């Protein structure tokens, strides 16, 4: 069980790097949605001994929400804004990739030093969570395109979700579904904002949002 879970988390960490290195928005969205689907599978693997219908429902909702609904909303916003390429980012693709890799290695090293519960010590959950949060930060800070920043925010949220999996036995399922709903609504709102920015500025470059005007 631990092997399968570590493999999935390793894949999710690889997708982080893919998201950092891709210059086209569709591949960034695809990496993010695939990561969401992997994350949705994880509770099923962790609790495969005592599955019940509520857990299955949460997993299904996560996979559908993060893997299908949110990417569809983002793709629609992207098509409406008529862009599929990242404009020149603040932090270039190679430096952000190297930053992400360094962050991943640092996360693995850091989690060795943390006093984890014995049943979590052999898992990659904590390094995966820290690496995803760092990736999300790099995307949020380093990209100039609004949709890439949204993807960064979602990857950051994926990292927090991974961290939450440590507490899967004690978190009420209402909390999980609440977070999922929040994220979906958030992306929905961002989709509208992206549309507004596009109309007002004819571009999704967030650098244009820094100047105040009457």
């Amino acid at each position: 069980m631990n092997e399968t879970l570590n493999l999935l988390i390793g894949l999710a960490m690889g997708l982080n790097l893919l998201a950092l290195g891709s210059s086209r928005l569709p591949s960034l969205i695809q990496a993010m949605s695939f990561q969401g689907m992997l994350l949705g599978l994880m509770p099923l693997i962790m609790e495969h001994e005592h599955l019940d219908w509520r857990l299955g429902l949460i997993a299904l909702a996560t996979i559908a929400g993060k893997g299908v609904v949110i990417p569809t909303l983002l793709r629609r916003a992207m098509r409406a804004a008529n862009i599929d390429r990242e404009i020149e980012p603040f932090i270039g693709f190679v430096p952000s990739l190297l930053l992400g890799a360094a962050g991943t290695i640092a996360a693995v090293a850091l989690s060795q030093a943390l006093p984890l519960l014995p049943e979590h010590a052999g898992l990659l959950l904590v390094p995966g969570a820290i690496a995803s949060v760092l990736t999300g930060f790099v995307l949020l800070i380093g990209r100039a395109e609004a949709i890439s920043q949204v993807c960064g925010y979602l990857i950051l949220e994926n990292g927090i979700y991974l961290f939450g999996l440590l507490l899967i036995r004690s978190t009420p399922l209402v909390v999980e579904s609440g977070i999922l709903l929040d994220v979906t609504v958030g992306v929905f709102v961002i989709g509208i904002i992206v549309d507004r920015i596009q109309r007002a500025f004819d571009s999704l470059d967030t650098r244009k949002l820094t100047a105040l005007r009457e």
Partner: protein
Amino acid sequence: MMLMLDLILRLVLWLLLAPLLPGVINRVKAWVAGRRGPPVLQLYYDLARLWQKGVVMSTLASPGFVAGPAVAWVALTGAALLMPLGPAGAAFSFRGDVLMLIYLLALARFCTAWAAMETGSAFEGMGAAREVSYAVLAEAAIITAVLSLSVQTGSVSLVSMLAPSAGAGAVLLAAGLFTVLLAENCRVPFDDPNTHLELTMIHEVMVLDHSGPPLAVILHGASMKLLLFAVLLVQAVLPMGDMSPLAATGALAGGVLAVMIGVGLIESLLARLAFRRVPLLLTTAFLLCLFALLVAWKGNRV
């Protein structure tokens, strides 16, 4: 006596089999495109034809123009003799021969670039500059890959490093080494071996002014380098040491064939990358090898 026989047999194997690989790649490409394509043995005919031709020398060129390809070819042959062949082991094996392998490959590259600049053509100088600037990144990746194999097995000689499988990081290592193979041998998506457009050539630029036997030697050396990298990739990933000799030989041959088919498929399905995107892909290859190193290191400690 047996040693000599073994050495000669090995040399004949490497020298005769290497030109087959580009033929296999071209056959796969032709098959995907629905063409009939050149015969698999085309490179042998080309080499024979080139060998009978005369050499055209620039009046500027020093003897280095001919010596460069020759030294490069000898370096690649030496590297081939260091590379173990499944159950047969290597012709020469000593502690640290893996460093020797890397340096021989670097020497071959240096000599090709040197010979390219002998003609004094600015165009060839540009090709040489491109080749070595990509090589910097590709070499970082291959050194990391070798380091991860070395950490995995706790050894620095190729025979014992390549015998077991690369363990949990095998997939990462395979992907990284395959990318390095494409970059080092100037295949798509790094370079197009068929192109003759000035702006897109890397390797082909360097050999433009060579003719006759030196060109044949360069072409043969390039095919040997391709075989060398394919053998390295297959042996790094598959657990050669655990198989019976027959199975290992079959696995090696099948693996090399599979790698060539993979190269052919990639060449038919992908376009070559824009120049400024190449460092990104090579950095990815480096990171893949780096993570393989991390997995090997962590796996050993647990």
